[in-house]
């Protein structure tokens, strides 16, 4: 029951959408290029956004996004039925971003990609923050790295749990636990502050 609930609230909101994606993925796995083209249209903007937030450069984000779909196209036939297709795409995207920084010889903690670089300022319009938002962002930095990452993926990028789980190579249950711990910690840190 829990699984079906989580299933229904994925980024493709309705069961019909989910069925459509499953159908497209199945056809694409069988070598149907047209179906993969529809998948491409469904996810291009999301993957582009995800990458842009991490590299902060339009052309690089475009190139890497295309690379994600090229890789996905080449590997989709071997995609297992475990996990979600969307999460798998994000995983490819994340790995490509890491490769991008490796090629640039930028030393980053690949496990903490979202908490380093210019990621945060790429996502959030810091010039137009309300006071309570400024406070939340400040205290967010005091959270453990995994909690920061989950909360940012969830609230900044509005990814669903399955995608976050895939990116972080964790289970969706673990993601929900980390999310809960992170929000509870934020509550504690802001208890004496007016937000």
């Amino acid at each position, binding site marked *: *029951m*829990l699984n079906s*609930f989580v299933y229904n*609230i994925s980024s493709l*909101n309705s069961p019909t959408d989910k069925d459509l994606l499953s159908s497209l993925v199945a056809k694409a796995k069988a070598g149907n*290029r*047209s179906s*993969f*083209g529809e*998948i*491409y249209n469904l996810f*291009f*903007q999301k993957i*582009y*956004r995800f990458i*842009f*937030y991490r590299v902060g450069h*339009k*052309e690089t*984000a*475009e*190139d890497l*996004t*295309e*690379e994600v*779909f*090229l*890789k996905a*196209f*080449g590997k989709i036939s071997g995609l297992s039925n475990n996990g979600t297709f969307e999460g798998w795409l994000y995983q490819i995207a994340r790995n490509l971003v890491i490769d991008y920084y490796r090629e640039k010889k930028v030393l980053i903690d690949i496990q903490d990609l979202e908490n380093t670089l210019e990621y945060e300022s*790429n*996502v*959030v*319009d810091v010039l*137009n*923050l309300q006071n*309570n*938002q400024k406070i*939340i*962002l400040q205290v967010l930095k005091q959270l453990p790295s995994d909690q920061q990452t989950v*909360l940012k993926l*969830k*609230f*900044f990028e*509005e990814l669903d*749990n399955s995608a976050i789980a895939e990116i972080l190579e964790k289970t969706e*249950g673990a993601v*929900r*636990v980390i*999310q*809960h711990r992170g*929000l*509870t910690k*934020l*509550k504690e840190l*802001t*208890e004496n502050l007016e*937000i």
Partner: protein
Amino acid sequence: MLENIEDILDTEINRIKNDGNFKIQKNLNISPELKIAKILFALPKNQIPEPNKQRKYALSPILDKTLHNGFKFLKIAFASGGSLAIVGTIIFAGMLSAKALPGQTLFKVKKVAEQTRLHLTFNETNKAKIQIELTEKRLNEAKQIFANSEFNTAPQKFAALNELASQTQITTQTIKKVAVSTAISKLDHPLVTSLEIVAKQQKDFAEKIQPQDGNSSLSLNALNTSQQSNNDVKEIKNLISVALTDNTQIHIAKLSENNNSISALGKIVKKEKSIVIVEGLNFLVTPDTLIKTQDEKILAIQQIKDNSLVNIIGKKSLNTKESFIANQILLLATPDDEKNKPVTLPPVSPNTSLKENIFDNENLINDSDIITGSFIVEDPKSEQ
């Protein structure tokens, strides 16, 4: 049924996500967390630039490993090699177009290159020379098309003849312009001679294609072009003749590098034993003076009648003021010629190359150290 707090919280968070106006129940244990979640969802996000390179690579039939591996290289190459590619394409197209024939796609490129050359030439006489070269080129192209079975199609033949007619018209217009202005001061000027050669070659060409080509329109077209060319040559010669027979127009050309040399064209109005006077300019005829007709026949000074049209090339005399020593006297027309028939130009060998003809004439002039192809023409009154 949800069993733990993490799941309940996650459910509520997703409700907030899907409905920004979702009201959080204040009596829940997780209300503070949900409030923070709502603040986090409401964070203003930066606008990300719209991607403009979204391509349907997934649908591309050439999507393969090679493209995959070469993708980055291609992207870089597009950025850095774009301008090089444009320049290279222009050069390559220019090289390819050099042999292009009328009716072919690259022929337009060839014509653009020719027009560029003309635009970069400012001297009218030199422009006329180029126009003659182009006319000969169009003629050779037409010959090539009619001779080669590969191009043996009516549209290409018509294209070749149209190009020839068009170029001939432009050339004759240019030479007419030069003739009535300043530079052409004699009937055997290289420009006129060259134009006549081309006209004759056109005539030969038109006559040859007539019997062997069944399309009467083609042969008619070629003959019309040839006829027009010959008419134009006659017209140009008449223009020059009129200028030469007009006693008020005496053209004196000075070498820019040698002010002692002159070339006078006009009627001899008075002749003495060793003095030839053309409109007040005295030329001393010496034993070294070359006197000849247009067909290279050597004459004695006594054989030239008064009122004959001559072209005298000479040098300023060092001993006598206001006199010149005649190096060469070219008889252009006798008084009878002027009244009864047009001046004829020397015969031209059909084997004579146009380019050779032009350069031969120029070399002859340069060797004589008298005059060049490009010179300044002044009114003698302004000199005095």
